[in-house]
C-alpha cells in the first residue's frame, strides 16, 4: 500500500513538526495489520461518521493494560478512511525511550493544549481518550464503565468548533485484564507499572462503533469554552452518547450482529 495521508504537513524533510513520517505510518500499518485482521478480527460500524477531511475529535473508551485499543483504532481509521489518526497520549509517554520516537513517527502527540490546538488548526483528525490512564488500568469488573472523565476534549471542540465523533471500542476491555498496578515502580514517569493477568492479550474480537458526530460548539461562541459549566455540560453530553454507544455495541455483540 503506497497511500499517503491526505493532509500531511511536511515541515521540509519528510516529517511533520510532531515527527510523523508517512513511511513509518505505512510500516506500522503493515506490522499491525495481521494482528488487527487475524488476532483481534476487527470489524467496524459507522465509519461514515468520521469526516473524510477537516478537523474532528474522536472520543473513545480506553482499557486494556497497554493502549492497544488506541493502536487498533488508529489502524481501523487508516484502513477505512486513509486518514492518519493523531492519538493524544499522556505526557509521560514522551519520556519512554524508543516508544516515544516510534509513537511520534506514526502520529501520536503529547497531550498539551498547544499541540492539540496546532493539530486542529491544521485540520487533523485527533483521538482523545478522556478516561486517560485510569481507563487503561481499570479493573476487569469495571469494564465498559467509563472512569474519571476529563473535559479537555469538550473545551477544544467548543473553542475550535470541531465535531466530536464518539467511538465505542468493544472487545478491548476484556482482552487484557490487569492483575496488579505496582504504584511504587514509576519508571520513566509512568504513574505505575501494570502487571497483566495473562502474558499476552487474549484474542477477543474487536468491534468499533462510530457514533453520530456531536457538534457541542454549534450554537456557542468560542469564548464559551472558558465557562466551566458549559464545558462540563458538553463533556457530560459526550459521555452519555458514548455510554449509549457502548451499550448498543455490547447488545449487538450479544445478539451476534456486527
Amino acid at each position, binding site marked *: 500500500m503506497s497511500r499517503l495521508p491526505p493532509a500531511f504537513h*511536511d*515541515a*521540509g*524533510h*519528510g*516529517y511533520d*513538526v*510532531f*515527527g510523523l*513520517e*508517512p*513511511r513509518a505510518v505505512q510500516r506500522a500499518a503493515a506490522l499491525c495489520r495481521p494482528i488487527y485482521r487475524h488476532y483481534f478480527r476487527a470489524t467496524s460500524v459507522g465509519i461514515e461518521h468520521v469526516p473524510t477531511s477537516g478537523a474532528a475529535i474522536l472520543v473513545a473508551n480506553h482499557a486494556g493494560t497497554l493502549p492497544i485499543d488506541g493502536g487498533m483504532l488508529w489502524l481501523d481509521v487508516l484502513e477505512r478512511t486513509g486518514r492518519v489518526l493523531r492519538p493524544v497520549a499522556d*505526557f*509521560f509517554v*514522551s*519520556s*519512554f*525511550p*524508543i*516508544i*516515544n*520516537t516510534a509513537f*511520534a513517527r506514526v502520529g501520536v*502527540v*503529547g497531550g*498539551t*493544549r*498547544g*499541540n492539540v490546538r*496546532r493539530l486542529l488548526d491544521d485540520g487533523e483528525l485527533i483521538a482523545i481518550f478522556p478516561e486517560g490512564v485510569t481507563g487503561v488500568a481499570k479493573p476487569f469488573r469495571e469494564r465498559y464503565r467509563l472512569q474519571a472523565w476529563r473535559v479537555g476534549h469538550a473545551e477544544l471542540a467548543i473553542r475550535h468548533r470541531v465535531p466530536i465523533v464518539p467511538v465505542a471500542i468493544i472487545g478491548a476491555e476484556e482482552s487484557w485484564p490487569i492483575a496488579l498496578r505496582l504504584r511504587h515502580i514509576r519508571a520513566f*514517569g509512568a504513574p505505575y507499572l501494570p502487571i497483566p493477568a495473562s502474558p499476552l492479550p487474549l484474542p477477543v474480537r474487536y468491534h468499533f462503533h462510530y457514533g453520530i458526530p456531536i457538534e457541542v460548539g454549534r450554537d456557542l461562541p468560542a469564548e464559551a469554552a472558558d465557562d466551566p459549566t458549559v464545558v462540563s455540560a458538553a463533556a457530560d453530553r459526550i459521555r452519555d452518547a458514548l455510554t449509549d454507544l457502548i451499550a448498543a455495541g455490547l447488545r449487538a455483540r450479544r445478539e451476534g450482529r456486527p
Partner: protein
Amino acid sequence: MRVLVVGATMPLGAALVQRLLDDPDVEHVLEVGSEPYASATPRLSYQRVDLTRERAVHDLVHGVARKLEIDAVVHLALHRSARDEGARIHARNVEATRQLLRCCAEVPTIRRFVFQSTAAVYALRSTAPALLDEDAALEFDPGATQWIRDRVEADLTVCARMGMSPMSIVVLRAAEILAPAMGSQLWDYLQSRVCLRPLGFDPMINVLSLEDAADAIRLALATTSQGVFNIAGADTLPLSRLIARWGRRDVPVPGPLLAPLYRLRAWSIGLEFRYDLNLRRFHVGGQVDDTRARAELGYGATRPTAWPRPAGDDHSTAT
C-alpha cells in the same frame, strides 16, 4: 533609517549590515564590534567598543550614535562560547545589554531597539508542547549553565522595558542558527565524525539559516510592532536525520553515558559542545512556534540551511 548594529562583526551582524546597505532607505549603518577592523564608506562606519565597560557603552551611544542621529539599534552581541563563564561574561551578556538599553532610551532620535535573543531561553520539558509559543515557560533552573542563565536574564531585562521606554522594543527569540562562528552548539556537535545521541530518543530539531535570521531582524526594524517574537527556521527534522544530512555517523548511546563522554571530548579536544546544555533538547526537541512573527512581522522562513549532503533519495520522495 540610521541603524546602529552592536555585534556587527559576527556572521549574523555582517549579513544584516549587508542587507541594510542594499536597502536605499537606509542612510547610515554604524557597526560596533570588539575587533580592530576598519571599514568606512559614506554610509558605513565602524566603532570598536568594549561592551563590558559602562563608560564605553555610554560614550558610544551619547557620542557617535547621537552625532549620526541613529534611530534604530540592533543588539546581537552576546558572548558566543558556552565554555567561558564568570563575571566578565555576565557583564558582557547582561550588564552591557542593560546599559545599552538605558543609554539608548536617553537619546531622543532612537525610536527602535531590536534584541536578538534565542530559543534556548525556553524551559524544555516533556510536558511542554512540541512547538513553544512566546508565553512558554523560561528556563529558571538554578542548575542551568551560565550560557543559558545569562540569556534568560538579558532577554527579560529587555522585555521589562517594553512599554516603559520611549523606544519600541522587539525581542527575537530565534531558533539555533546552524552556522560557524555563531556560537552554535549543534554546529560544533556536528564537527565530530561520529555524533552520539541518547538511545531511544530522536527529537525534532528546528534550525535557522543565517539569511532567514538576518531577514527577521530586517523585518523587525521595518515594522512598528513591539513585543517578543519567536523565529523558526525552514528546516525541521529529527536529530538522527540532521546528523545524516551532515554526513556524520549517528550513534545512539544510553543517555547517562553521554554526559561523561562529551565531557571527555571537551576536555581532550577542547571544543564548544556541552552536553549538559543540550541534554533536554536532545530528548524533547524544543522547536518554537513562530505564528506571531508570521502574522505581525510578515516573517516566514524561506531559505533552508546549506546541507553538505543532499537529501537521501529514500526521504526526498516522502512529501
